[in-house]
């Protein structure tokens, strides 16, 4: 009975998470072929150990060499990193003041404000991205509004540019930034600020010297929660970005579905994962430290 309790979820994850991952690794070392499935070699165990050795000897790093030689790929990695960094920064810039104001609001207001932040999170991601197409297009609402107010006389091109991608990311990931920051600020003891002001700090100084350092764990958590998924994002760049918006999630998708090059798509995936390992480990460590600090 106890064994079964461990075994069922264990086997499930091994079969549907670990094994598929091994297959990706293996295919990334294979060559493309005009066959079904479209790669070679395929593992044939009927010849026993010699078959396995022959199989191993056919694997090589060719796809990875190819990724370094074609500048599409490293440009896509760099531009994904850049988009992820900048949009995390913009999300923080928008999210922090909102979280700060929520934590300072009267206690009876806070559940309602919290609800207003969480509600978009439950609403479909795709729909929230879709909403921006109508706003940002040339004849869209933003251009109509700006031309009506007389700020511009010609419509701006925003949709299908990187600007639209930034707006889309900040919009969809904003709750992920607000919630952890709010959680740390809400726990903060208000008397600390009074103490700082009694000791001669101005309000501004008290904010920078007391509030900001105390909010740091939430800020770091929020930044990782935005940065990590953004790096492999596919929906936002493909709906709001242009043909020159390079993001690795989109490149992987196109390599797989449009070019049908499974080996290259697999090695693109493996490298993306290698890049992600660093922020993921840092994030885990940050969570661990926060947990210990709480106890």
């Amino acid at each position, binding site marked *: 009975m106890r064994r079964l309790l461990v075994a069922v979820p264990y086997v499930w994850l091994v079969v549907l998470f670990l094994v598929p991952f091994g297959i990706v690794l293996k295919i990334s070392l294979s060559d493309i072929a005009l066959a079904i499935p479209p790669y070679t070699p395929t593992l044939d165990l009927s010849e026993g150990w010699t078959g396995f050795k022959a199989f191993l000897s056919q694997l090589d790093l060719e796809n990875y060499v190819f990724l370094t030689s074609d500048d599409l790929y490293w440009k896509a990695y760099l531009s994904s990193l850049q988009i992820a960094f900048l949009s995390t920064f913009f999300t923080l810039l928008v999210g922090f003041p909102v979280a700060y104001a929520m934590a300072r609001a009267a206690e009876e207001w806070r559940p309602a404000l919290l609800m207003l932040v969480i509600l978009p999170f439950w609403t479909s991601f795709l729909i929230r991205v879709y909403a921006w197409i109508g706003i940002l297009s040339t004849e869209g609402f933003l251009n109509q509004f700006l031309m009506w107010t007389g700020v511009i006389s010609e419509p701006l091109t925003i949709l299908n540019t990187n600007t639209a991608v930034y707006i889309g990311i900040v919009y969809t990931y904003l709750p992920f930034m*607000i919630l952890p920051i709010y959680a740390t600020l809400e726990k903060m003891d208000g008397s600390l600020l009074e103490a700082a002001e009694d000791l001669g700090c101005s309000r501004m100084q008290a904010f920078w010297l007391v509030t900001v350092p105390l909010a740091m764990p939430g800020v770091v958590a929020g930044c990782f929660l935005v940065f990590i998924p953004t790096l492999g994002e596919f929906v936002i760049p493909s709906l709001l970005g242009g043909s020159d918006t390079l993001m690795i999630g989109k490149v*992987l998708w196109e390599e797989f579905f449009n070019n049908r090059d499974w080996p290259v798509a697999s090695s693109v995936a493996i490298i993306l994962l290698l890049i*992600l390992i660093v922020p993921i480990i840092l994030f885990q460590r940050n969570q661990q430290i926060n947990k210990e600090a709480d106890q």
Partner: protein
Amino acid sequence: MRRLSTFNIVSLTLGFAFLYIPMVILVVYSFNESKLVTVWAGFSTKWYGELLQNEAMIDAAWVTVKVAFFSSTIATVLGTMAAYVIVRRGRFFGRTLFSGMIYAPLVMPEVITGLSLLLLFIAIGLDRGVLTIVLAHTTFSMCYVSVVVSSRLVSFDDSLEEAALDLGASPFEAFRLVTLPIIAPAVISGWLLAFTLSLDDLVIASFAAGPSATTLPIKIFSSVRLGVSPEINALSTIIIAIVTVGVLTASIVSKRQITQRLKEEAQAD
């Protein structure tokens, strides 16, 4: 806490305006007479009528709900088991690997999860359809369920279970009669989370779905790529309405339960 400064009020107003204006526009323009989404031509509900006659869309919606129901239910069972094992069982063979496999899918980019599952399904010759989408969704959402449930399991005292075992309950009875009622709220919110994640997923479903089964997000995505359409606005409005009603109901119910419990505790004292 002090009163809100002007800066606080401005940031709240702008922040929530930013979050809600796009959705409000979406909803308002779903009642637009014109086919052009950005030009107002008078009130009409005709796009809802057209939506209801779009059989492909309704089929996709039905597939999506089916997938979400089955995957979230299986994921809740597996995720609760996994959480229980991680929190309550001390050491067992491969524990580090197990907890690694629980957390990894949470941070794994969707394109990679989707790609790897598709390659598995092809390698074992499983035809892609409803079953493969259910398998894929169960795999990533059981990890979310397990995180939600284990945070609840950590916070309650395991001496209650021990007491039940001492009093002669079998391990299964102890779980069913003691542990499960205590973690039930977390199990329910885990199920809801898994259900919504499945309803919402585009990327993993696109990899796991075959020509025989299309989910609503896949349908929406392919039609949105061709541009905005009032029909999609109408569909979005329906989805937003369902989610809003659902979330509000859930929060009111849980608030009632909390006040009820506080009342009972006050009476007991």
